[in-house]
């Protein structure tokens, strides 16, 4: 069964639509205003029929709306969504503005052209979206906090626990064996320095702006002490030359060193690692050059096999690429690992 347009009463149909349906002519005089439009704009249809469309727009948008309308009227396009890139705003009878989503179509009626706008108030949707965004941010912050709490537990708590146990027994040890006492006192000194380095490294994660202020050689020394304290791997730091680096380069190099050393601590079973940072200032012929090398004497891995746990390696590659540096990883089973990043040159 089909319906002819005469059988289908369009006015009735438009009245069951909750969206606003507004028709107007080329002079932008309102010709039709459905129940949805009455609910959204607060006007009764009889108040607006024959009135200019401008009464439904915030004043500051009247001119720009007129220009968009003229463009659309002159174009060959039959219909178009309005404000595709950002929400448009409409004006309620009481004067308040609300965000809306709308589409416009043109219809030919004999010589005349008729325009129909279908519009929806998206105030609630925007509120919900904004609440969702806030919620997502809160979840991200909570996840970051619990990661930091875990790191604090894995690192600083363990070290300070050891400190407190040793400090507790030290007086008795000293009485019996002063030499052993001195050795343990030295251990206490190293443990507490390590806890300090671990705590500072974690504080950098809470306040990333501090990364920009510090210089790279200090950051690397602190990182080395922190890794040593957490994992027992001895990390030697060699710095050659000193160049003022841009924050981007400095932070990327620090993050690469951090990732590489975390891998050493977690996976390599190494006893020793070395960080070498060589920096050469730019001269007349070449740009500044920076080379960062992290090596360890651990178990190494097969670089030709890709594993899910190697995701950190991809992240290092991305960080290097972002600052225009080359990153190479050399490793083989039983032969340790070398990560090298080079910029400039």
């Amino acid at each position: 069964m089909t319906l002819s347009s005469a059988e289908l009463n369009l006015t009735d149909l438009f009245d069951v639509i909750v969206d606003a349906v507004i028709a107007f002519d080329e002079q932008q005089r309102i010709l039709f205003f459905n129940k949805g439009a009455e609910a959204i704009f607060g006007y009764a249809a009889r108040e607006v029929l024959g009135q200019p469309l401008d009464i439904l727009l915030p004043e500051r948008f009247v001119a720009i709306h007129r220009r968009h309308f003229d463009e659309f009227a002159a174009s060959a396009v039959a219909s178009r969504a309005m404000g595709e890139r950002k929400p448009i705003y409409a004006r309620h009878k009481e004067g308040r503005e609300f965000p809306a989503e709308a589409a416009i179509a043109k219809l030919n009626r004999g010589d005349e052209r008729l325009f129909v706008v279908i519009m929806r108030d998206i105030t609630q949707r925007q509120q919900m979206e904004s609440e969702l965004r806030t919620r997502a941010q809160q979840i991200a912050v909570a996840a970051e906090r619990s990661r930091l709490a875990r790191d604090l537990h894995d690192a600083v708590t363990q070290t300070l626990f050891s400190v407190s146990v040793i400090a507790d027994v030290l007086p008795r040890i000293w009485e019996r064996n002063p030499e052993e006492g001195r050795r343990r006192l030295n251990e206490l000194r190293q443990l507490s320095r390590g806890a300090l380095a671990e705590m500072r490294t974690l504080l950098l994660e809470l306040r990333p702006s501090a990364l920009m202020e510090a210089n790279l050689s200090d950051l690397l020394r602190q990182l080395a002490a922190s890794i040593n304290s957490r994992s027992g791997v001895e990390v030697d730091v060699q710095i050659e030359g000193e160049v003022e680096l841009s924050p981007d380069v400095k932070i990327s190099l620090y993050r690469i060193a951090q990732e590489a050393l975390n891998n050493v601590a977690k996976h390599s079973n190494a006893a020793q690692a070395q960080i070498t940072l060589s920096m050469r200032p730019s001269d007349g012929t070449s740009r500044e050059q920076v080379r960062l090398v992290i090596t360890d004497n651990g178990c190494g891995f097969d670089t030709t096999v890709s594993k899910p746990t190697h995701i950190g390696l991809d992240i290092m590659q991305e960080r290097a690429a972002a600052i225009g540096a080359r990153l190479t990883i050399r490793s083989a089973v039983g032969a340790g690992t070398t990560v090298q990043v080079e910029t400039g040159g």
Partner: protein
Amino acid sequence: MSGLLAEPVRVLLADDQEKVRSALRLLIEQELGFFVVGEAGAADELLHGILKTYPQIVLLDWELPGLPDAHKLDALRLLNPHLKIIALSGAPEARKSALAEGVDGFISKSEPPDSILRALYFVHDKV
């Protein structure tokens, strides 16, 4: 059972951090009634340690890598049903679940080291 002439009680230390094991060893070795028979840094080493060194007490890091999230003690008790287990944790809130799993003592790493010795002596009398 305790007393100067009695055999010292055999204790196995299980914690993933070497410095923690070293500090615990130092603490326990000051006590005449106890003897540290071995150390384990992960769950598999712990199981081997129980088989090889016949500990009577395990001082167990409740977050030891390789232990399952629940029924942490099943494998240990299977190897030695008489084993006494004192859980040691960085998270004081783990006390309830540890006791529910049947540990013989629970110490948070934020408590003073004295409490470790107190727990050891408490369990010692039951060995």
